[in-house]
């Protein structure tokens, strides 16, 4: 099935993904031209290939579908996705993977600020670097960064786990470096594998919550 968005617009594509597509369906999308809300709310295990750049919220709330963007993605890529796989061959703008619950999001290039904000279970693997305030209030899920992380990484993080290969310019409130142990090498290896990336695992550092702010304590007031 092919959709030329210059002709059909996103409505027809999304309707197809909701109503008609089934797990075997293969969908090619042409002329995305930075349009917003491409392939949002997909429900079935179909494959979607988008040939070009996409705007806001591409693959938002994805369930089951396997979506590849052959270009760059605008803000809110795969926001609140539930399952399935989303891959961007270029870079992703702000808040990719925001609040997402499950599945795998791969950004082959860089991801901008607030990558994985309020993460709720999704796994994110970024081939390049990520912007500031990434994994802000991230609850669960994992974020792997093969490049560097900008300021305030993991601010107010809960139970999500972060792995960074390069430098973290600064950690946010209540985020600390934690030792890499057996289970961490194992999960990192598996995530890199699934993302199709390979780097020596000893080059990664792990970050997570110090859990000091889990219950309000007035002695911590200066941390806010």
């Amino acid at each position, binding site marked *: 099935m092919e959709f030329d968005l210059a002709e059909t617009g*996103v*409505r027809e594509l*999304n*309707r197809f993904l*909701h109503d008609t597509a089934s797990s075997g369906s293969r969908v090619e999308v042409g002329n995305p031209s930075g349009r*917003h*809300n491409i392939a*949002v*709310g997909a*429900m079935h295990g179909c494959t979607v290939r988008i040939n070009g750049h996409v*705007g*806001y*919220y591409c693959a*938002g*709330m994805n*369930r089951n579908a396997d979506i590849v963007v052959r270009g760059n993605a605008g*803000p*809110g890529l795969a*926001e*609140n996705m*539930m399952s399935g796989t989303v891959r961007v061959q270029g870079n992703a703008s*702000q*808040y990719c993977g*925001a*609040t997402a*619950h499950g599945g795998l999001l791969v950004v082959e290039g860089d991801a901008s600020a*607030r990558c994985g*904000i*309020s993460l*709720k*279970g999704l796994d994110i693997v970024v081939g390049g670097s990520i912007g500031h305030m990434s994994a*802000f*209030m991230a*609850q*669960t899920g994992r974020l792997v960064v093969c490049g560097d992380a900008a300021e305030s990484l993991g601010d*107010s993080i*809960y*139970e999500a786990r972060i792995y960074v290969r390069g430098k973290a310019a600064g950690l946010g409130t209540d985020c600390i470096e934690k030792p890499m142990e057996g289970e961490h090498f194992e999960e990192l290896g598996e995530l890199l594998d699934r993302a199709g990336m390979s780097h020596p695992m000893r080059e990664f550092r792990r970050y997570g919550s110090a859990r000091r702010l*889990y*219950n*309000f304590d*007035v002695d911590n007031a200066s941390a806010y």
Partner: protein
Amino acid sequence: MSDKIDRSWLLESATFSRPVIREIQRAAREGIYDIRGFGAKRKLPTFDDLLLLGASMSRYPLEGYREKCDTRVTLGTRFAARPLEIATPVTIAGMSFGALSAQAKEGLARGATEVGTSTTTGDGGMTPEEREHSKLLVYQYLPSRYGMNPDDLRKADAVEIVVGQGAKPGGGGMLLGQKISDRVAEMRDLPKGIDQRSACRHPDWTGPDDLEIKIQELREITDWQVPIYIKVGATRTFFDVQLAVKAGADVVVVDGMQGGTAATQDVFIEHVGIPTLPAVRIAVDALKDLGMHREVQLIVSGGIRSGADVAKALALGADAVSIGTAALIAMGDNSPEFEKDYNELGSSAGYYDDYQDGQDPTGISTQDPGLGARLDPAMAGRRVANYLRVLTLELQTLARAAGKTNVRNLEPEDLVALTVEASAMARVPLAGTDWIPGFEQKR
């Protein structure tokens, strides 16, 4: 001996009143601000400061029990394929499962459904119980996105994007650790027993231009079927309402500063935002200025208690109102039946506002299974339905007296103000005069 003191000579300070002194002492002892539930307790200009003009020589009233006075309202007529038809212009506001027990949520759902109106989820997601018992359920889309998922989104009869709440415009949510049961923790993807801070800003959009795209995303996911509301706390209401309309809302919900909350800093509840009374007027002005009054429906909330409040809000131009606290009271909140329990918690029926701490003896604002079991959802639903019926009957009584066959035909011209403040805020004349402060009337 205290009984020897003649107390009639003791003068309490207006500045340092007993509650103020007590709060300073509490702050000095505990070192943390007071977090509580309920709404603003200070005195504010309200709908009580307005009066309706009944019909007389120049207007014909309708016969009280015979002539029809329509209360039906359709919400979301702008873009949605399936607007919401409600039988009475009073809806149940969003209150989270987590803040409220599952029994209370079910009670609200049953009550609303019995009278043909809608109820609303809250910060924490949709529970199967409330979906099952709600004919019309509005699904809130909040900054925290706790429990947000496309399946529940598609089960919703409308989606309400919460930008803010009257009790705390500019503030996020808070659910203290003691209220996080296994079920609440699971629905929110967080460990049990820790404080849950809900963000005050949405994670994936920032201004009204982004919001417009966000609304399109939600419409795409729901196939343009259901209305999309935007809820704002009343502050810069004129601009907020206009930006909500520009962003593509079907319905705008404006929540005044006396609106209830489950847990917010007292200083926030009492000192931020504007009251519901001016907010309605400003919101209607904003819609009229865009030529969108009645095209985009306006729901108003914050301190609605009676059919008179509803009638006055409608007369000022709202399409419907929403209630939170009053619905909880209808279910048994602050009932004298629980006086002993309230006393044990250091409070009393009529004063209780500790929705944040999970020990609510009525079983309403708690996650304690023992306390929750005290509330029978069927009985609670019955009471909510009764109360909603009374609001509707009162509203009809007033509308008929003003000669209206439809409650929405109530208009500002049917109102006068009792105080200079209310007159200025509602922009209706001070009773007995044709004077509206700050407004040049062209006659």
